[in-house]
């Protein structure tokens, strides 16, 4: 039986393969021609800058002349207290920022998607757009809006809290070391929660109606249905969202820069690798720009993200099953 199956599979392929052998040589040119524009653009915009950054990180400027120093820049960055204190602090902040997103953005995204896919929900399109809108806004607008809301001097938050008698609860959250990073993370979650929501919503819509009806007949309804049927089927999508969040978080810069400036104040409390890189590379206030150390930080960020994505691809995704629906 097995052999018959194999024969059936092989026989039609063989003549086709031999027939194709001759034209394949001419067809290869097409492939190259069609790939060329994308390859050129990608090389010019991604590969060359990346390679150049890696190269830059191996040099040091001595009296305006580049000197090859091997991996010494990395040793300085990771161990010399003048650099390493900032680097490890930024790294810790980044981890916190990421953990906050994973623990808040994914669950909220899943919950919103689950609510949106309720069959009897009215005004679905409105909610969908409303939750997704911040994602489409420029980070400049988002940053400035939240500054306007949370400013202790001219923000609306103190007045709003005051109107319900909770004026005393207000704190300048963005300006206090203890709360600044958390506040920024919350703003970032608010802005980007639309992406996991949309992806997970799409994954939920892809679950066939009869499957859900079978669950209804089996008495699996409401939250049990969500937990036992829907959630297992959307895990792969949640995984994708998590890795997108990871890459986004470890590249984050814009929101911090617009809200708390390049110094990532107060007292570097909101410093992420992105802002640290920016200050180092371009210089800031009294600090002179150092392209070589900047490139070193950029390379470290690249390696961290590479390690994270690789760990996800080989450690998590291979274990996660995507079920044919």
């Amino acid at each position, binding site marked *: 039986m097995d052999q018959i199956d194999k024969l059936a599979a092989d026989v039609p392929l063989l003549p086709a393969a031999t027939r194709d052998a001759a034209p394949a040589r001419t067809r290869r040119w097409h492939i190259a021609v069609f790939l060329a524009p994308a390859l050129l653009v990608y090389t010019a915009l991604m590969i060359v800058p990346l390679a150049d950054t890696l190269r830059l990180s191996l040099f040091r400027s001595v009296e305006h002349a580049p000197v090859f120093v091997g991996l010494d820049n990395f040793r300085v960055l990771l161990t010399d207290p003048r650099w390493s204190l900032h680097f490890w602090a930024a790294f810790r902040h980044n981890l916190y920022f990421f953990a906050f997103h994973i623990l808040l953005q994914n669950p909220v995204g899943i919950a919103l998607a689950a609510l949106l896919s309720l069959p009897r929900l009215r005004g679905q399109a409105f909610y969908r757009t409303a939750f997704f809108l911040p994602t489409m806004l420029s980070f400049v607008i988002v940053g400035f809006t939240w500054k306007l809301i949370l400013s202790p001097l001219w923000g609306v938050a103190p007045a709003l809290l005051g109107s319900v008698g909770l004026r005393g609860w207000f704190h300048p959250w963005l300006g206090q070391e203890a709360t600044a990073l958390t506040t920024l993370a919350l703003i970032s979650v608010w802005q980007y929660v639309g992406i996991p929501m949309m992806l997970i919503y799409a994954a939920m819509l892809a679950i*066939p109606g*009869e*499957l859900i*009806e*079978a*669950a*209804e*007949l*089996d*008495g*699996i*309804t409401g939250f*049990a249905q969500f937990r*036992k*049927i829907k959630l*297992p*089927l959307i895990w792969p999508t949640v995984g994708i969202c998590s890795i997108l969040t990871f890459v986004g978080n470890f590249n984050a810069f814009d929101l911090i820069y617009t809200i708390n400036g390049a110094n990532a104040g107060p007292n570097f409390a909101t410093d992420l690798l992105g802002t640290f890189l920016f200050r180092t590379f371009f210089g800031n206030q009294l600090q002179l720009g150092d392209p070589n150390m900047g490139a070193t930080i950029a390379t470290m960020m690249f390696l961290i993200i590479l390690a994270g994505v690789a760990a996800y691809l080989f450690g998590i995704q291979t274990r996660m*099953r995507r*079920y*044919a*629906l």
Partner: protein
Amino acid sequence: MGSLALSAIRKSFGAVDVLKGVDLDVAAGEFVVFVGPSGCGKSTLLRIIAGLDEQSAGDVRIDGRLMNGVPPARRGIAMVFQSYALYPHLTVAKNMSLALSQEGVAAADIRRRVETASALLRLDALLDRRPAELSGGQRQRVAIGRAIVRQPSLFLFDEPLSNLDAALRVGTRIEIAKLHRQLGATMVYVTHDQVEAMTLADRIVVMHGGVVEQVGRPLELYARPANLFVAGFIGSPTMNFIGGDAAARASAATIGVRPEHLVVAREGAWTGAVSHAERLGADTMLYVDVPNVDVLGAGMLTTRILGDIDYDVGDRVGLTPQEGKVYRFDGGGNSIAA
């Protein structure tokens, strides 16, 4: 256990009336098949019985209890879908036991019920597999197993064999019939295939355009169709319908003769040339052009002869209906009693 009563069930989707008043009583233990062309509302009716759709008007009673608004899981029913609708992330065993663990049935009891069902359906070797690792026929048996373990008093099947190939369809059909005998539960089965209906049913409900055309035992429908639609739908190949003079002589608007009731000879009531012959070995189908007879539809008379009869295209043959096997219909399409 498991009787079903439908009274004046109506269903509209917006302005479209899909069911236009369906009444039906199904006795406990009966096997009833809803049959009709695609789009006539069979699935809709089944989904209303299951509680997946709400009827626009009318009552559903199961075991005498009014079911309007009762959620599907509380109706004492189980349903098998055409797409199987197995949980793709769960093993066969889990697929079958999920409803029971949700109900809070004791673990030992669950195991016993899953074992019984899987033995009945020859699923023992597959219990640890996931649906993606099963063939179509195996998936279908798992879907039936998932229904069985719940020990419902009423089984609902929506075209369960449509996705199977012809050989498997016959095998599974026989299994379902056996299952009905073993379990003694009431079964309501939807199909568009009249052969499935004839072979499985205690009673057939023929539906057309949202109304029930006729309810009856399979051979009753074959022998005494209530109208043109049922006469044409039950039986394969379909009945020949003849209008014009031939019908008028029998004082009817239309007369019908089943292909198997036409006697082929050199001469006959109607003569014509064979325009096509299908030879299946066990029987032979002849399509005969009869220019002087007003045959409705295809314009050809179909006849079915037992055995392999060697007719060629172009041969002239005479066809005569067997004594007492002519169905008569009035202008409204309803049968005229003999």
